[in-house]
């Protein structure tokens, strides 16, 4: 089903803003293969303006095979983590058939910066940057303490489960990459002890954080990969060098240090996580990203996607190989 979003938004504006409300602006921000984000504004009859974000699924969704959660589940997660104090953009509306937008939800628009490179290098963020790693730790503790809402049916994965899933994808790709092979075998042998599983964000990294130059982390975005897992997975993922944007010397997102992240996590009630446990997950994160890059190349090679971007991402595998070889040399 093709949806004309621009045609459906004025009706939604009326529903959200009441009688006489109009659509004041609408702009598509990004479009992945399966998800679209639109910025729009509603102006009420009294002249009040609300800046909003629409997220909608633009391709068919199979909850059994997809790693993503439904947008209804995302909405429930946003509400649940906000109740525990974690910053997420407040939910405004979960779309239904009446809206004619398919599977979609509307949140408030939180202002700030999401571009990783700007967050790590722009002078505007100099003052707040040293506080971000600790804030990230605190926020993750809040997310991990959140009971899974009933409306969200989430998948579970532990270290060996994740490793096996990505090894299967790697094998199926037919690629032969000695560093990835070594990393699979090494991590299998040196997997950290299992820990009690909790709610995870699942894609907590620089790029999915809305950063305000004054307050720091204003919102955690993009809950679609949320699942149940080892808390160290979220802590390790934000330390993967691919999201440090040219600042490998600042291991947490290119803006902070491990010690601040872990201290913030513990101070906010998170179960203590050792650095070596975090680093094992960080290495698995680099390995996963390497395999994802292979997958994105393959989606192009197999004719599923035509974008010029996809084959180029295949050449990002080598960045993960270099990062992994240094991690393996350091004993992780």
């Amino acid at each position: 089903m093709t949806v004309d979003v621009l045609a459906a938004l004025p009706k939604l504006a009326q529903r959200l803003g009441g009688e006489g409300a109009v659509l004041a602006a609408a702009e598509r921000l990004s479009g992945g293969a399966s998800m679209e984000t639109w910025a729009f504004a509603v102006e009420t009859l009294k002249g009040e303006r609300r800046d909003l974000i629409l997220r909608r699924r633009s391709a068919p969704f199979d909850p059994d095979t997809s790693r993503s959660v439904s947008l209804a589940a995302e909405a429930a997660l946003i509400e649940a983590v906000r109740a525990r104090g974690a910053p997420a953009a407040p939910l405004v509306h979960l779309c239904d058939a009446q809206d004619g937008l398919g599977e979609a939800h509307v949140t408030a628009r939180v202002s700030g910066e999401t571009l990783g490179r700007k967050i790590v290098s722009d002078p505007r963020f100099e003052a707040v940057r040293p506080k971000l790693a600790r804030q990230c730790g605190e926020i993750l503790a809040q997310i991990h303490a959140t009971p899974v809402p009933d409306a969200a049916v989430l998948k579970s994965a532990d270290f060996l489960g994740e490793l096996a899933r990505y090894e299967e994808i790697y094998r199926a790709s037919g690629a032969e990459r000695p560093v990835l092979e070594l990393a699979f075998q090494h991590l299998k042998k040196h997997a950290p002890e299992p820990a009690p599983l909790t709610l995870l964000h699942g894609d907590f990294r620089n790029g999915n954080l809305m950063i305000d130059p004054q307050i720091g982390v204003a919102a955690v975005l993009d809950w679609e990969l949320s699942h149940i897992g080892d808390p160290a997975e979220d802590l390790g993922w934000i330390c993967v060098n691919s999201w440090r944007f040219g600042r490998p010397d600042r291991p947490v997102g290119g803006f902070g240090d491990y010690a601040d992240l872990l201290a913030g996590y513990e101070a906010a009630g998170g179960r203590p996580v050792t650095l070596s446990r975090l680093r094992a997950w960080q290495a698995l994160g680099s390995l996963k990203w390497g395999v994802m890059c292979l997958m994105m190349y393959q989606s192009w090679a197999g004719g599923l996607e035509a974008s010029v971007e996809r084959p180029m991402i295949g050449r990002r595998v080598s960045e993960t190989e270099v990062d992994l070889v240094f991690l393996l040399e350091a004993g992780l």
Partner: protein
Amino acid sequence: MITHPRAEELTEAVSRWIDAVRPSLDPRNAFLARVAANILGVVARQQQLGPAAEAAAVERFTVLLDHRGDYAGLNSELCDRLRAGDMDVTTPGLIATLKANVLDQLAIDQPNYRHEGLAQP
């Protein structure tokens, strides 16, 4: 190979044209145009650095595996031996070989990438 023009001059000409038209494109296409220019950079560096990088990789594989062969064959054998557990991080020369090979590849794919090995100031 022939000159007037050399292959890298052809990729450079296309890159420059992409840069020239990029400001007139919508944001999505401007982004994709930058990706396209980056792709031409990879192709040009592979032309320039690829043959020596592959020869050096074959040399390193030959020492590590203690016999001669071509790149694909040696690479494949190494993967099999790693998977079988015949070799691991403690194998003398393994990490050094892998590191040299992937750094050569990174110099082609993303020469400006600041990798994990640069983490210590």
